[in-house]
Every structure is written in structure tokens, then in C-alpha cells.
């Protein structure tokens, strides 16, 4: 059946959006509603699944199927949905607290099983919904309601965590960078397997400007290492040109003259699909202030998906043993007759 092409409006639900004025979540919502029609998936085949948190209210605003579950478990609900019906396009929305604090374990295992899901982690480095406690991604020293004298937890980097979990697709994007965010969503959708995306998101109310230099167009170029497949790792603010060098597993920055050939100078060429995870790990280890923060797709490789392997086992079992017969099952093994 051919149906009229969808537009952004088709993905807007009838619920009023309830985030604070200026919340980064608005921009993410708007851009995802914009990309959706381009993906060519019928609305009824799309499911948004979330945990608990400000970001996790996302499904209510998408005019698709949606499930606002419980704190930290969204990846598990999504796994069940995908296993049940692999034809669905399943999107998980989570936060730095929902996904990495209470939900860290499910994120780890869902990622390694490589279900074909898109997992969007809105990282505002704070607990928004519960009104401002530090999160596992908050920097040491952050003063919050629960840490009036400053946080003493060393933060975890979602990207390193995801690669450590064996993720087949890992990307980082920014709430306010509409073009890049939309492109990243497209890539995530195209990827077969778990696509993990960290979205740097601003919480103007409880952790304003936590990603300041990256959100601000003026300072972004100097602080972001924007990745492009096959391109050298070059970055730099106005008037500067720098590249990333990787020797013996040790990253360093080299200054480039405007006419230098970066590769000749030893700048690494970006490859999303290296055999080992050594390279994406090296990228993930680039942390500010010493290094620019990689933005874009750090890793994209092919690996079997859980739901496909499960279906294969079912199919081959049917092929070998025939479709299951209840009657036969009940009579399998030793039975005996009692005559009347």
C-alpha cells in the first residue's frame, strides 16, 4: 500500500511538551521529528522507549508507539520489544543518570548483545528531573544539592564505556547542532546493531553551560574534533590548524601550517571500522582540556545482532525438527498405557 509521504507534523503528538524553557531537549526533539519522515519507516513501526528522567519523557511527544518505563531499564524493555518483533524500529531515550547510573548494567549488556536499536543518551551531566543532583558524568568538584561541598566521584565517559562494552556503533553529537544531530540520527538508523549516541545536552536550570565551549559556535572549532570517515583528524579555532598524532598508543597534538599535508605530518586518518577497538579507544581517550572532544561517529562495524541469531536458531530448529507439535511434546520420552 502506498501512503502519503510523512512530514514532521506527523510525528508530533497531542501532548504539551513539558521541559523548562531553554532546555536542550527541545532542540533534540525538534530535530528527531524532522529526520523521522526521511527514514521511510511507517509511524506504526516506530517505538520510542525510555526510562525515567526529563529526557525520558520524550516518547510522550512522539506520535509513534511509545513506552515510558521505569528508571534505568529502558534498554531491557527495548530488547524484549525488538526480540518480539524485529521489524520495528526501536529507539531508546535515556539520560546520564537513567542510562549510566541505575541503568549502567542494562546498557552494558544490551550494547554487547548488539540488538538492532538506537540508544540516545542525553548527557546533561546532572539529574534534572529530581531537581539537581550530580550524575555519573558530572565533573569532580561539581556543587549540587547532594554535593554542597563538591562531588568526589570521578566521572565515567559514556563513549569509553560503550566501546569497552563492545559497541558496534558509537557516536557523539550536540543538542544544538541541528545538522550534525540529524545526520547522526540517520547514520544510527542505517546501522544494523546497537547504535549508541551520546548527545551533549544543556540543562539551563541545574547545570547550565556544562558543555559551553562545544555548544557555542564561536568556541566549538577549537574544542571539538569533528570526525569524518577517511579524513585526517584535524581541528582548530580561527587561525589555528592542528592534528592528532598517535604513536605507540600515545596521542599527541601537532601544529600544522596552513599548507601542510596533515597525513604527511603524521596526522591520523579517521577510520570508523578498524579491526580492533584500539583506535576508537584512543579517540575516546581524548579528553578536554588537553585534547579536543571527538564529535561524530567514532566507530561503526558489522556484527551479528541478537535478534537475528535468535531467529536463525528458531528457523534451523524448525528445519531440523519440524514446527513444534504440542501433542508430540507431551508424549515425548517414556510413556505407558493404562488399559481400561
Amino acid at each position, binding site marked *: 500500500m502506498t501512503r502519503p509521504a510523512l512530514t514532521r507534523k506527523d510525528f508530533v*503528538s497531542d*501532548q504539551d511538551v513539558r521541559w523548562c524553557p531553554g532546555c536542550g531537549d527541545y532542540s533534540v526533539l525538534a530535530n528527531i521529528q524532522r529526520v523521522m519522515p526521511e527514514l521511510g519507516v*511507517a*509511524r*506504526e*513501526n516506530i*517505538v520510542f*522507549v525510555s526510562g*525515567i528522567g526529563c529526557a525520558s519523557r520524550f*516518547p*510522550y511527544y*512522539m*506520535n*509513534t*508507539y*511509545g*513506552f*515510558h*518505563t*521505569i528508571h534505568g*531499564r529502558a534498554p*531491557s*524493555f*527495548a*530488547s*524484549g*520489544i525488538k*526480540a*518480539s*518483533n524485529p*521489524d*520495528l524500529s526501536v529507539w531508546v531515550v535515556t539520560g546520564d543518570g537513567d542510562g549510566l547510573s541505575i541503568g549502567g*548494567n*542494562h546498557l*552494558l*549488556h544490551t550494547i554487547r548483545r548488539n540488538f538492532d536499536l538506537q540508544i540516545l543518551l542525553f548527557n546533561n551531566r546532572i539529574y534534572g528531573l529530581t531537581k539537581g543532583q550530580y550524575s555519573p558524568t558530572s565533573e569532580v568538584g561539581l556543587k549540587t544539592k547532594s554535593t554542597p561541598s563538591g562531588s568526589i566521584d570521578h566521572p565515567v565517559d559514556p563513549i569509553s564505556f560503550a566501546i569497552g562494552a563492545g559497541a558496534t556503533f558509537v557516536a557523539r553529537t550536540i543538542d544544538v547542532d541541528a545538522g550534525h544531530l540529524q545526520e547522526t540520527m540517520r547514520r544510527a538508523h542505517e546501522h544494523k546493531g546497537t547504535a549508541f549516541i551520546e548527545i551533549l545536552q544543556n540543562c539551563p536550570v541545574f547545570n547550565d553551560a556544562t558543555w559551553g565551549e562545544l555548544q557555542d559556535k564561536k568556541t566549538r572549532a577549537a574544542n571539538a574534533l569533528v570526525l569524518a570517515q577517511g579524513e585526517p583528524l584535524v581541528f582548530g579555532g580561527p587561525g589555528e590548524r592542528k592534528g592528532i598524532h598517535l604513536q605507540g598508543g600515545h596521542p599527541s597534538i601537532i601544529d600544522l601550517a596552513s599548507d601542510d599535508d596533515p597525513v604527511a605530518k603524521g596526522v591520523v586518518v579517521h577510520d570508523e571500522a578498524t579491526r580492533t577497538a584500539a583506535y576508537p579507544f584512543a579517540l575516546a581517550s581524548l579528553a578536554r582540556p588537553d585534547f579536543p572532544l571527538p564529535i561524530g561517529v567514532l566507530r561503526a562495524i558489522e556484527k551479528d545482532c541478537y535478534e537475528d541469531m*535468535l531467529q536463525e*536458531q*528458531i528457523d534451523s*530448529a*524448525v528445519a*531440523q*525438527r*519440524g*514446527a*513444534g507439535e*504440542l*501433542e508430540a*511434546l*507431551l*508424549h515425548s*520420552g*517414556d*510413556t*505407558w*498405557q*493404562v*488399559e*481400561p
Partner: protein
Amino acid sequence: MSSTEGAVGSALDVKGSPRELDRVAIRFAGDSGDGMQLTGTQFTESTALAGNDLSTFPDFPAEIRAPAGTLAGVSGFQIHFSSRDIHTPADQPDLLIAFNPAALKANIDDVRPSGMVIVNSDSFSKKALARAGYEENPLPALRERFALVEVPITNLNRAALRGLSMGARDIDRSKNFFALGILYWLYNRPMESTERWLKSKFSGEILEANLRTLRAGHAYGETTELFPISYTVAPAKIEAGTYRNITGNTALAWGVIAAGVQLERPVFFGAYPITPASDVLHELARHRHFGLKTFQAEDEMAAVSAAIGASFAGDLGVTASSGPGIVLKQEALGLAVMVELPLVLIDVQRAGPSTGSPTKTEQGDLLLALFGRHSASPMPVLAAATPADCFHTMIEAAQIAVRYMTPVFVLSDSYLANSAEPWKIPELDRLPRMPRQPVAQSDLGDFQPYSRNLETLARPWAIPGTPGLEHRIGGLTKADVSGNVVYDPENHAKMVQLRTEKVARIAQDLPPVEIEGAPEAETLIVGWGGTRGAITAAIEAAAEAGNAVAYVHLRHLNPLPPDLGEVLSRYRNILVPELNSGQLAMLLRAEYLVNARSYTKVDGQPFKVGELADAIAKTIGAEET
């Protein structure tokens, strides 16, 4: 197997015709490594084929490998078989076969006075005695109290297998089959099923060894003077039909498969291993050809969450665990209650609290099933009564889940999980069916996810992939009909009331309470779950002793049967035997204000028929004085 038959035949010539018994209980006991569970299962199959009614009870050591020869490492298997129908594995074995001193020490006190005790005399070395904690050899003393038979099983087995090129250790591994052979002779059991099984499992020398020693054991029984006579137990008069043995866990697993077939929904089973529930996962994982999806999750929260997700997407979601794992699933169950999706949760109860005694049995989770979630979060609760009943209970639970769009709690226990009973295989088209509401169809009108079926109050099951039914659900308080997020008090109260009423309405589908035993008696016994066999046997024993009582056994714990209150009101005393501190008794007292008294035991063991019969007698006595 002519050889065997020949053997049995000649046994008769040598030793005169076997003595007829109407019931026998045998316990196999040895080290975890001695293969007692296997030996017991083989004897059980053979006994079933012989047409006896039977009941078995394996008693493993806890989930740990204890050092060989120690008490902690003793593994036991008891089988009770009869020419009449029986309900329990029996309180006291008539025969104990002990493969080492530890096995003897751990089990001897259970044996019927002057019962028979067979020991592997080769295993009674000083060292072994010490390891079992015996200062001196106990055998002499035992000769007074029991018919003690000392058989050098180890050496006889070695002798039987002389000439095989197998290593000594492998040879010794077969000794349990030598013993099995003896028992097959002693009770005139057919050996075919075991020989068939051996051939299906092994080949080459191992097969050869096991067959040889099995037959050697049989011949030994026949020829030695140690056994003056053999026994037979006539087939029981049981309803005609095709029978099989089944354990509670297998029955649960097959019930899951049957429910999927009957409801025409794919099944998604999410679980995290835990004793004694793991076998449900193991069994289901073997049946992929039913299109069955098993998912071993990283923990219990993930297991139940994935199952709920699958139910949202249109599968029948099922999950199983035990005590500690059940507790961890409760938060997600609360969500299932709120979003009103079908789900079956299986709780194979074990002895707690905390990690407790994982391989022991208890009925400790009834109140947990009812009240283990925060706020008013009602779930229907069903409990299986016997191993085979696990099959039917599971199917009914699934039907309720789909008909009323609700998660359902199914209670089994460690005793049911591992015990076996003969089961008349049901005819599929005779299985009870409930009317169920159809899955919601694509409609272009405006769809209301929280509109309700007037009869059941179920909301529609609207499955992703269906055009026009796109909707959002979640754990926040829902608006009636629309399901939107709202906070006004009237709506909040109404939704709490609707969910409660929906579960209460399940009572409309329940049959009237069945009163067994002596309905006209003044005393009523009320039981639930896996104690059915013991209570039934106790009631029969009590009746024979002139203490007839009425008996109601509940499968439905929530909602309770609508006529239960009226039934209870007819009796002067009500006794509620439970393997917990009185959980059902508490519910009955609170609900009906009747003076239901508890008879409880919480020691990890099933009820003994004797202790229950005494309790019944006391209750009646108590009333008379």
C-alpha cells in the same frame, strides 16, 4: 531383553515366588558423585512402566560441591510406589541403599524401624568413616535395628567389568548400575527402560560396561543368599490412558509452551538463572522449534523488563525466578500492573530468608506475591498443587493474563519443581479455555488505550506495527480512557479502584470451592500449593483413624473464590497447614474474620504425613475438650 526375563524367571525357581506388597518406599543415598539422582530416575521410569502409582522426592545437597564423603555432600532420591494411589514420597523409606558412610549417617534415622538397609561395604574404610564423622563402625549396632545387607558393590562392579580397557575411575563410575540391577531384581522391575536409555545415551565400552554391570547386579540379587526373597507391587488401578512421569519444573515449561499454542501468541521467556527455577529456562531453551524465544538476561530486572517489552510488542511474556530474584522483579511488575499488559511471573519458592537454603522447599512468598509492590498494585495469584498441576496452573495463569490484561503471579516450590508423579497426558482439545479478548485491530477512529472491556475491565492490547493504534503508555498515573498523564485526585482514585476491581472480577470465572474429605465434618483443613499431596494423605490417614475432616485446597489466592467465605462459615474449626509462618491463615482471618488456626513448619522440608495427621487429630481433640 530375554536374558533378564530368564533371570527373573529363574529367580522364582531358586527362591520361591516373590512376596506381594501394596506399597514400598526406597531411598537411594550416596555422594554427589555417585549418580543417585540418575539411579533414582531410572528406577522411577521402570516403576512407572510397571504400572504403579508413584511419587518421588530428590534431596540434593545445597548448591555447593562438598568434599567427597562428607555429610554436606550427600545426595538422596526417594521413590514411593504402590498398587493404590498415593500422594507423597512417604515419610519413612522401607529400604535405604547407602553408597558410603556419610549417606548412611545422613539418612539412617529416617528408615522405618526394622526396615531394610543395603550398604556398599567396600566404602566403609576408617578414612571414610572419619570423613562422615563416625568414631566407630556403625554397622554392628545397626544389625539390631534393621535388616542390614552388606554388599561389596565396588568390587563386585569391578569384577563384572574385568577385561574392559576402561580406566579404574570410569569403571567405578558404573557401580550405581550394579546396585540398580540388584533393586530391579529385588522388586521385580522390568529393566527395558533403563537399557533403552543407556543405549540412547552411551555407546562403545561405556554402554557395554553399564549394561553388563546392571545385569550382573540383577544376577547377583538373584543368586546370592543375602536376599532370601524378592517382592512385587501390583499395578495400581488407575484411570485408563497414556501416562508419563513429570516434574513440576518440566510441567511449568510445557505449560508455557501450551499456553502460547492455545492463545496463538508467540512466547517470550526472559529469565536469570536461580535455583530451583533454572530448569524451567533449561527446558524451554530446548524447544526453539515452537518459535519460542528464551532470553537469559543479565539480571532479574532485565529479565522481567524484557518480558514486559515483549508483551507490549504482542508476545506472551513470561518470566521465572525464586525468592531473591522475585523481590528484584517487583518494581517492574508494578509497571506491568500500571500499564496493564499480560505477563506471567513464575515463583519457584525456596527456603529463605536471604540466600537461605537454596535447594530446600518453603511456601514463604504468598504475602510477597500479594503485597511485595509499593502502593496498591494488585496482581492475581495462582498456586500449583502437584508436579503435574504446574502444567494446568500455568495455562490458566496465561489465559487470565490475556483475558484481563494483567500480570499474573504463579507460585510453585522447590518440592514440586523436583518431584515427579505419573501424569495422564491430557487431550489437548479437552484443556479448559477462557474466552479471551482479541488483539486490537487497526482502526481509523480515535483509539483510546485505556478504554475498557465492560465484562473484564481489560484495556485493549494494541500492538506496535498496527496502523492507527499508535499510543504511549508508562508508569505515571494515567487518565481514565485516554491514558494521558494527569494528576487530578479524582482520576487517581478512580484508576486505583479500576485496577483493583479488574482483578477482583476474575472471581467471576472461578468454579465453586470443591470440598473434599468429609464435607459434613466439623473441622475444615484449608491448604494451598505444593502441600496438597501430604495433606491428602494425612486426611486419608486421619479418616482411617476415625478423625474425618473436610478439606479445601486453594489454587486461587487472589482473588479468593467468591463462595469461600460461606464455606468457611460452615465449620467449627479451621486448620491451615502451611510451610511458612501462617500466611494464608492470616489472609483468611483478615478477610472473613474466622478463627483459622495455623499448623506451620519452616525447616526447608515438606510436610510429613504423620505430623499432619497428628495435627488434625489434635485439632479435633482440642475442640472436644
